[in-house]
């Protein structure tokens, strides 16, 4: 097996950090709102039982929050440590949302966090409740800014390339902040966190009911979580649909990989389930699947809002499709190389003060700028992300998402009918569904991030160019250290969480 390059280790390290981070953060995003709802009921009704319920879930929130913060800081600084070239290239744009996140969201979260945990007997009930809501809003605002930054990487807008500094510079902050891709990414991601949190609360409450402990408090928790989960999972469906539309518009290669679609067609169906052929080659004219079940027209409908629309496949995008006016990757690579050469010429001309050569090079650069990143690809198929991983991850996410809606609906109905404790098998299903929420969210992350490879910034910078010039041995060591540390902390967290759950609601009076 060939040795992995430094960039691959950096990708692995970032993926490791992001996967761990995304195990903890989604729960915090939703659980903070569920807790705020529970506390609001307590303040409104004055019923002490709701206070105990709030405090119990609050403790689980805190255990999870700590490790989410720890992995979060690593992600912020890894942009600098492992992706230094990227940081310089886009710091003008990407840095701003990160700084705003710190100022507007992170301080809000961390300041009121102290009141939430230690202020029960020190501030008024209303002040405490406001603090709980502010922590929830703060953690979600934090997600907003980081996902706006991520959305910009997937769909870079509102900027201009400066040939003097060889970097992107922001031209319109509002275009960046209100990017439809960033906004829908935020809505879809935070909603997935809400669903995870609802599944978490329902699952643990179901376990209490099965064990015959704290039945009233567990049922109360369950009804809050089920209603929260039902509403948010339905919204997740709609935001997922809008995500599909945006991906088709801005990242057609990602969509083709998500669908395992090599040859595009009009009235394209959506593959509900399929098994990809492992030996499928680009342009071999063979079908993509050993077996598949397709819903006719659906991909055209989701992707283009038109059942007759043409959806390009991977081969259309790689080799081009004249009939459909799709440019090949080879052609884009040629333009990209012109842009790369023009940039070099511009900078050399600047050193010698040759203004004519500078103007000529700048003109060439501007004409071919949208293809800059293609100039660094070695072969056209480098523009294709890992298809199987993207395809299967997408199916896992969608199938689980659909199952969650059904589960929330049933749990909600039975809670309303007040006889959920009679359905033991369903309660066990609720318990075992907790990890499925995480699997769905991680699968969604894989679709979004693996599906956009090889780009650090869509069409403009490959991950290879964005990586820090580090020897692979450095990143191998840091990857290993992070893997050990995160795993140890995960084990610690799980053990502590399980113990706290076993202790139950009593100790939170």
């Amino acid at each position: 097996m060939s040795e992995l390059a430094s960039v691959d280790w950096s990708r692995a390290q970032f993926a490791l950090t992001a996967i761990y981070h995304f195990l903890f953060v989604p729960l915090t995003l939703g659980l903070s709102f569920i807790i705020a709802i529970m506390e609001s009921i307590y303040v409104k009704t004055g019923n002490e039982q709701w206070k105990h319920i709030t405090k119990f879930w609050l403790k689980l929130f805190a255990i999870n929050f700590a490790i989410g913060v720890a992995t979060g800081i690593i992600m912020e600084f890894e942009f600098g440590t492992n992706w230094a070239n990227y940081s310089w290239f886009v710091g003008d744009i990407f840095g701003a949302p990160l700084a705003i996140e710190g100022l507007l969201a992170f301080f809000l979260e961390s300041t009121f966090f102290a009141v939430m945990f230690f202020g029960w007997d020190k501030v008024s009930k209303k002040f405490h409740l406001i603090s709980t809501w502010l922590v929830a809003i703060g953690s979600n605002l934090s997600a907003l800014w980081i996902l706006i930054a991520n959305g910009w990487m997937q769909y870079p807008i509102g900027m201009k390339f400066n040939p003097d500094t060889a970097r992107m510079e922001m031209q319109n902050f509002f275009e960046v902040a209100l990017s439809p891709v960033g906004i829908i990414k935020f809505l879809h991601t935070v909603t997935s966190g809400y669903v995870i949190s609802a599944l978490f609360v329902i699952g643990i409450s179901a376990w209490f009911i099965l064990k015959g402990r704290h039945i009233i408090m567990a049922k109360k928790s369950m009804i809050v979580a089920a209603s929260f989960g039902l509403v948010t999972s339905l919204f997740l469906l709609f935001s997922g649909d809008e995500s599909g539309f945006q991906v088709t518009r801005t990242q057609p290669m990602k969509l083709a990989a998500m669908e395992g679609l090599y040859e595009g067609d009009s009235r394209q169906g959506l593959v509900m389930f399929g098994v990809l052929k492992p030996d499928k080659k680009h342009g071999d004219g063979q079908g993509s699947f050993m077996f598949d079940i397709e819903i006719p027209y659906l991909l055209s409908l989701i992707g283009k809002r038109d059942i007759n629309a043409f959806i390009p496949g991977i081969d259309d995008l790689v080799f081009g499709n004249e009939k459909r006016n799709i440019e090949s990757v080879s052609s884009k690579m040629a333009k990209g190389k012109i842009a790369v050469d023009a940039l070099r010429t511009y900078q050399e001309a600047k050193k010698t003060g040759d203004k004519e050569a500078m103007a000529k090079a700048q003109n060439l650069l501007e004409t071919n700028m949208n293809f800059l990143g293609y100039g660094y690809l070695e072969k056209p198929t480098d523009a294709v992300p890992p298809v199987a991983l993207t395809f299967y991850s997408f199916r896992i996410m969608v199938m689980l998402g659909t199952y969650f809606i059904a589960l929330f609906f049933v749990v909600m109905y039975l809670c309303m009918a007040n006889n959920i404790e009679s359905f033991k098998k369903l309660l066990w299903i609720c318990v075992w569904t907790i990890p499925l929420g995480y699997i769905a969210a991680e699968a969604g992350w894989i679709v979004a991030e693996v599906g956009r490879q090889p780009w650090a910034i869509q069409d403009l910078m490959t991950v290879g160019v964005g990586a820090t010039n580090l020897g692979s041995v450095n990143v191998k060591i840091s990857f290993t250290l992070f893997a050990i540390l995160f795993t140890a902390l995960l084990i610690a967290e799980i053990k502590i969480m399980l113990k706290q759950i076993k202790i139950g609601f009593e100790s939170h009076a």
Partner: protein
Amino acid sequence: MLSLSHEILQIYWWVIVSLLGGLLVFMMFVQGGQTLIFGLPKSEIEKDMIINSVGRKWELTFTTLVMFGGACFAAFPLFYATSFGGAYWVWLAILFCFILQAVSYEYRKKPDNFLGQKTYEIFLYINGSLGVILIGMAVSTFFSGSDFALGEHNFVEWKTPYRGLEALANPLLYPLGIAMFFLSRVGGALYLINNISDENFRAKARKAVLKNTILFLPFFLMFIIWIFTKTGFEYDAEGVVSLVGFKYALNLVKMPIVTLIILVGLGLVLYGIYKGAFTKSTYGVVPYGVGVVFVVMGLFLIAGLNNTAFYPSFSNLQSSLTIKNASSSHYTLGVMAYVSLIVPFVLAYIFVVWRAIDSRKITQDEIKNDHHAY
């Protein structure tokens, strides 16, 4: 803000970064308090009181560090890329120290905590000692310079294979690191005097203030003598960097306001220490805190203003970073300057919440009866 010139905005953002640096060093009283858990308390409950006292502020230190990083990323991205990407191992070591802190408070006393209480206490000590010393040494490289060059498109090329660890072999970088370690312990002790209502404990903390001040002073003086006598890195109107003797001392003379900030800051720090160590007052931490912010801010200002390269390269002078060549565009700095107007509101609510939570001091009874105590 967009009507301000690019140059003014670059200075404005260096002032903001300097302020954040000052706030970060002040907030390191949390780290200092963590290192006091071995030695200062004479019982388990006293140790719990320390951990619960500083532990209720740990997120703010963390947030200030994140904010410092975020502001550098947004305002001076070339510094962010060069320093973090270049001095890879130093920054990763600092990050490791901070990961350890984040979980330690919450997990230390929880049943089934897998690694055991003592391990988390050692984690807190590592964060409070190694983390602080390494940050101090990293900041010292603002004055010593580092071994890097900027290649094509300003991409960083670190000139040693040790990726920042070579700083550990430079004895001139230790004084600030060690001074910061003892300073954070002084801050920690002053904060504990303010925050813990227990006269016996306060008496011990007052002794800790004095002892750590005595240990802090020589290292801080060594650092001050070093920077004010050393050759510094200056750039001219064309951005050409050259070496200038006594550059940082000259900066003090050329920027009397900065000199005043540093002197007032030093006076406040000493006054705070005096109140904490020699009087019955519990409010020494207030002048100390304001003083630390002033002094550190002043040191950052002399490192980056008056045509000084704030992140010098000693292997290739012309690769040195200045607030001009390392900054974001005029537009981004302008937009971010609007965002920075929110800072006073953030400080205001932090002040309100801090007062609300600290209005009732920590007692042994509270720690014994609080279900969420760390």
